[in-house]
């Protein structure tokens, strides 16, 4: 029993602790809350990164809460994918809190700032808990936490359209939560367990009477989670909510929260049901096909809508739909390259999209510009932000030295692997469309407007452009050093497919 | 067995009172008069059925709680009736009068 024995649960508990402390500290000194939140996220990310050596593919880290063994108690189970999510969330968390420091000071009255940070810490708690839990009802509980907090975070400025967007989000999100609960009900009624592995074992030898119910549960799970992930037919809440929310919140929602929906789909399709269930019935595979089609449609629709937008943040939001499509497509290809690529895209998109939104926030903060046309020549007056945008757009498009390239390359490989050439075409077309909308912005930033001499450099505060720049450098880093993560993702996916 | 008869009696009486409350709610002409069956008949119906239950369970630990329920029911239903009536009064909802009867001064302007 070594010192890091309790780290899995501490990842969830530490941000919760800081969330509870935030309002109390806020009463004493409001300016301290930011530092508290920063410290909390730093601790969390230290804990998360310290787990890296301990989880290897096929060798999950299991932690029994309260000392009750799994089917009876709740289990925390960290596999490679969960570990990836945890590291991404907690590392991005620090940067987003740092960014919020200056940005939110202007957006919110002082008395609500401490509650903003509380909500931020709570949403981290929920996402971390969601990623590493091994229990479906526990997953639902954490899903509700991040759902409620994200409704509030969208509307936190109290702006007119933000409220509308938040309400729309709330109605769809709450309905999807009910769908998930109903699915849990169905699944519980035929398996009698809530632990994922236990359910998976039970499903493999399910009595044929209950196959129908289990499939209904699967359908409801996927419906519910795809609303949270904003897949194509049910994406309608996303553009408004993500574009109107304050920029760090947009970055949070786009980079992390919708990934939770994807992760939910992944967990249900592979950890809970999995190929073992597929041996009983062909339905699992055909459902995978359906989801993959929805994902392909989201890739195209998201990119097409993004091209049509005039508003920068709205464009980025639609681009998120497209990228969620990539991730889900990769996961649903049933080829280990695809799954690894999908998860690599989680990393790449989290950094790239967060960088996009943060840069958009910088523009908004400094100049008050939202429209793409207004950005003319901003590349000269705000070089660091614009540079970060350009760098991140490499990753979003999927051009070679960036992480996005590695991700899309692997997804493409997966498509070819499983002989779905149509999907391969979709992936390529999506990249071309992404190039159109990203390069339009880059063009406006750097190749139009007044000449270099006429402009002074007016950069946003360092606390704002540093996170953005770091994130876009990160996309480059993980593009070049893809060997750090990709092999273990590959082998973990391979194990997943064999099981 | 006298206990049984008492229980049946009490619950029957309670049911009749409840029925009276329902019919009163449905039949009476206006809001204020509907207050009467709702506050009185219902409360007494509930009380008598609860007394029947007291008898049914015999003298046990629950009896005191049942009596407490009766007490709270009386208090709260009287208060509720008053509160509803007062809100209607504040809303200037004019009470219904029998066609032949000369209406009394409303709001007690003179009496």
């Amino acid at each position, binding site marked *: 029993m070594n010192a890091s024995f309790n780290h899995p649960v501490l990842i969830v508990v530490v941000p919760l602790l800081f969330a509870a402390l935030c309002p109390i500290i806020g009463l004493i000194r409001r300016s301290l809350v930011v530092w508290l939140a920063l410290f909390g996220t730093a601790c969390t990310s230290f804990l998360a990164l310290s787990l890296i050596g301990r989880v290897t593919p096929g060798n999950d880290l299991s932690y029994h809460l309260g000392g009750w063994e799994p089917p009876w108690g709740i289990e925390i189970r960290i596999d490679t994918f969960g570990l990836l999510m945890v590291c991404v969330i907690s590392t991005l968390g620090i940067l987003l809190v740092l960014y919020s420091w200056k940005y939110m000071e202007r957006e919110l009255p002082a008395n609500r700032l401490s509650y903003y940070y509380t909500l931020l810490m709570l949403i981290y708690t929920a996402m971390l808990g969601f990623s590493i839990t091994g229990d479906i*009802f526990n997953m639902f509980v954490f899903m509700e936490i991040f759902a409620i907090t994200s409704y509030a975070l969208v509307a936190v400025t109290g702006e007119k359209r933000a409220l509308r967007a938040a*309400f729309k989000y709330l109605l769809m999100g709450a309905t999807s939560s009910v769908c998930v*609960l109903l699915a849990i009900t169905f699944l519980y009624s035929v398996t009698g367990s809530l632990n994922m592995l236990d359910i998976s074992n039970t499903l493999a030898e399910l009595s044929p009477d209950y196959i129908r119910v289990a499939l209904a549960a699967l359908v409801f799970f996927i419906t519910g989670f795809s609303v949270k992930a904003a897949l194509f037919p049910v994406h309608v809440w996303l553009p408004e909510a993500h574009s109107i929310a304050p920029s760090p919140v947009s970055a949070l929602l786009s980079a992390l929260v919708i990934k939770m929906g994807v992760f939910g789909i992944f967990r249900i399709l592979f950890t809970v049901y999995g190929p073992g269930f597929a041996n009983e019935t062909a339905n699992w595979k055909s459902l995978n096909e359906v989801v993959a089609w929805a994902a392909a449609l989201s890739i195209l629709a998201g990119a097409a809508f993004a091209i049509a937008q005039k508003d920068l943040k709205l464009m980025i939001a639609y681009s998120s739909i497209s990228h969620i499509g990539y991730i889900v497509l990769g996961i649903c290809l049933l080829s280990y390259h695809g799954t690894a690529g999908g998860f690599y895209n989680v990393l790449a998109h989290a950094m790239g999209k967060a960088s996009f939104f943060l840069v958009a926030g910088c523009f908004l903060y400094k100049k008050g510009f939202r429209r793409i046309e207004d950005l003319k020549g901003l590349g000269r007056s705000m070089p660091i932000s614009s540079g970060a945008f350009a760098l991140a757009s490499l990753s979003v498009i999927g051009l070679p030295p960036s992480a996005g390239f590695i991700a899309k390359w692997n997804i493409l490989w997966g498509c070819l692997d499983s002989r779905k050439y149509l999907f391969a075409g979709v992936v390529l077309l999506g990249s071309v469309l992404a190039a159109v909308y990203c390069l339009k912005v880059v063009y406006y930033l750097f190749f139009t407007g007044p000449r270099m001499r006429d402009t002074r450099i007016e950069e946003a505060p360092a606390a704002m452009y540093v996170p953005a720049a770091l994130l876009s450098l990160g996309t480059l880093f993980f593009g070049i050093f893809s060997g750090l993560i990709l092999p273990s993702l590959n082998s973990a996916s391979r194990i997943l497919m064999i099981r | 067995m006298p206990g049984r008869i008492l229980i049946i009696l009490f619950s029957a009486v309670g049911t009749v009172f409840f029925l009276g409350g329902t019919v009163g709610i449905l039949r009476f002409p206006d809001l204020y008069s509907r207050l009467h069956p709702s506050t009185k008949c219902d409360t007494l119906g509930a009380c008598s059925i609860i007394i029947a239950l007291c008898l049914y369970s015999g003298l046990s630990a629950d009896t005191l709680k049942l009596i407490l329920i009766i007490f709270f029911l009386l208090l709260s239903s009287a208060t509720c009736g008053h509160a509803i009536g007062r809100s209607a009064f504040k809303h200037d909802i004019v009470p219904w009068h029998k066609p032949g009867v000369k209406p009394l001064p409303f709001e007690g302007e003179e009496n």
Partner: protein
Amino acid sequence: MNWSRIFQNLNYAVSLLLFLMGLYTLAMKPNLIKKIMGLNILETSVFLFIVSIGMVDSGQAPVMAHGAAQQVVVNPIPQALILTGIVVAVSTTAVSLSLCIRIHQKYGSLDACEILGREVA
């Protein structure tokens, strides 16, 4: 379809009916507060469903008295889950209602058609 079986599992059928009614309210009623009520119906219907699953005929409530002999007890797990579920429902309702208040302050209306333009979300 066997009628006696439906009658036995009436709770399932009714919670499905309530589920559909909640969905209908959520989709069709323009008023936001009405939508929230629909959401509540929706949630309650699922709660009813899962607790009905845990029911055992002639079972007792899962509270063991001191030194009681082994008795038939209904399944405590769904009840524990729904306890959490009710809390979640209340929280969602509180958040959505405060959103309603703010929306009314800004828009002067709670009608989804007026707020969202032509479409009814």
